[in-house]
């Protein structure tokens, strides 16, 4: 189940970005979202892609990218799909790691997130590769 969902994510990304298979870094240890093959995906967990704003903001837990969040919203990083070498390392060093909370401060004129006590401006493209579980306000 988990594997098939990840496959879906990968397929969507490949179709969208026209890039080689991205490497997926997963969140391993959080409760409720376990990577082991035996456990299934939590009930009600849906996948959303960019543009699908309405459903991304329903109360139930969903996966979306930072790009799909609204300014002022908070989420927890689930996994990151970097499209370039070194980017993941870079984000990790800034504290953007699976399991950590991420706040979207603003989307315009540049996208700015807060992680721990660091505020970071990010390219939209990079933000689109950071997937979170939406927690709302």
């Amino acid at each position, binding site marked *: 189940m988990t594997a098939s969902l990840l496959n879906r994510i990968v397929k969507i990304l490949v179709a969208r970005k026209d890039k080689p298979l991205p490497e997926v870094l997963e969140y391993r*240890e959080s409760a409720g979202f376990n990577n082991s093959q035996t456990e299934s995906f939590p009930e009600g967990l849906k996948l959303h892609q960019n543009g699908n704003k309405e459903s991304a903001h329903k109360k139930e837990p969903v996966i979306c990218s930072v790009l799909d969040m609204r300014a002022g919203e908070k989420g927890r990083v689930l996994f990151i799909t970097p499209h370039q070498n070194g980017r993941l*390392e870079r984000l990790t060093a800034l504290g953007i790691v699976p399991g950590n909370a991420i706040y979207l401060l*603003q989307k315009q004129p540049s996208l700015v997130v807060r992680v*721990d006590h660091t505020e970071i*401006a*990010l390219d939209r493209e*990079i933000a689109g590769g950071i997937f979170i579980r939406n927690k709302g306000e």
Partner: protein
Amino acid sequence: MSEQTREKTKEKRVILVGNPNVGKSVIFKQLTGQYVTVSNYPGTTVEVAWGKSRFGGEKFQVIDTPGINSFSPLSEDEKVARDLLLKENHSVIIQVADAKNLRRTLWLTLQLAELGLPLILALNIMDEAQAQGIEIEVEKLSQLIGVEVIPTIATQKKGISTLTEKIPYSQKPSSHLKYDSRIESAIEQTVPFLPENHISPRGMALLWLVGDEKMGTFLEEQISPPELNKLEAIRSQLKEHYLEPISRVLSQERMAQIEKILSQVVSKKEKPESSNAARLGRMAMHPVWGVPILGLVLYIVYQVVGVFGAGTVVDLVENGLFGKILNPFFIKLFSYLPIPLVVDFLVGEYGLITMGVTYALAIVLPVVGFFFIVFGILEDTGYLPRLAIIVDKIFRLMGLNGKAVLPMVLGLGCDTMATLTTRILESKKDRIIVTLLLALAVPCSAQLGVTLGLLASLSAQATLIWLGAVLGILFLVGFLASRIIPGRKSDFILEIPPLRVPRLSNIIIKTAARIEWYLKEAAPIFIFGTVLLFILDKVGGLSLLEKIASPLVVGLLNLPQEATQAFLVGFLRRDYGAAGFFVLSQQGKLDPIGVVVSLVVITLFIPCIANLFVMIKERGVKTALAMVAVIVPLAFLVGVALNFVLRYWQVAL
């Protein structure tokens, strides 16, 4: 082999490393008494600074480095710091950290600890951490990572004495992170092949296993090919076990460990974090509020530097102090000298005192001084990275991103320094574009001040035309360059520091250091330029050059012949050239259109000899000369076009 070189190698070294904008340079100053520029934005330090000090009666060299986020460097400034860690034999590493960001701190600490060198963690900015309700159990943290941890508030000198006491007794990390058993056994297999080094075998083994380039080339030089083959085999065998690159496997284990540590040592009392500074900081990068705030900032800079500094103060100093008191005094004093040539050399039309010193001290220094003060305040508040956010979209049109704002804005201080700061940009393409734009269209403080002073005496319209022409060229060239120059643009990942109230003491020291630097760097060039003009004038070269340039300067630009001199010294320093126009205008030899046209040309000119040298150093001779070949003709071309347009429509200024 001399006594001295052996002495040098014996001297112990302390290297300060850490994330960007955590206060390494402040601590460096407190350990050595030596000032290096301190500001509130990441990337202030792009070069390594060396200093000396004594700790516990022992001599130490202290090294300040550019900030690094992790051990795999992405930009050139990060590379500098990391290479220094791997290459030099350090006695002690002090990791300076922002206590608010313990997760990022430990990410680096765990990697530094693996090097097996004595390590101290200076947990800096404790005041802000406490203000945010973050509590860290320092002793427990120290136990868990096996490293001495010292809380500090460097700007208030708190904890610094404890730090200096501990430096001579610093210990190697007493524990290290244990990885997955496969990785551990690969490390064990690798270690016997490794050469002696100041880094621990475990540290070298890990760098080798993740495929670190530096370690690869180091081992290639140090061990025999068959041994290297065996190491290769160990590494590729390990790789096969994992779906992901080994570096990522290590990352995940480190992160897991960090989470464990954090949960044990950090407690947060959630406080309403909206302080006034935080709110203002948010507003400064707000899509709506950010724009008027930017306008206000620009207006204040213009008022202080352009109107007050370049207008009022220059008027007082140049016309008052120099024009009425000093110069008449010197002219009188030297008129008693028997040799007319010497009198002329000192106080004549191109006299050392009446031109060189007057330009440098009376026209440019007040302007530069006020600019340095205002700019220093801006730097220390943390406004600049927020500016980057506001203009990011515009910069994208030039194929750059907001990160390039930092060197460009620094260019308004000094293009030479700013060209060095292009190191914070990750891609070569970005560095080339920014270097070109700095040299072409970003006037430095000295020139900007003189220019604004001159324009302010005309009209707001004149200022807008000048600004429009320069910005227009900036974007046009940026736009074209981003399409012509091959390569990839950098990612935009920029840390936004908290907005802080500038410390008066730092502003004073920084301004003083910069003025001292200006006097050392620029004043000799003014003197040299004056001597050059004097000699040219005496041998008749000046009138010859004026004749040669006359079709361009007089014919196409409608400027007086003397303008050639200003362009000539403009090759040495743009502000010197601008000061030349300043004087011409005072003498009534330039009409308003002439002022605007000449200022546009001189703004687009090569900044100065010093900047040219730095361009060559950073970008190579070929690239630098290509830029000059674009810039100089372009500057005149734009001037001619502007002159034609303004005169054709008889724009009133």
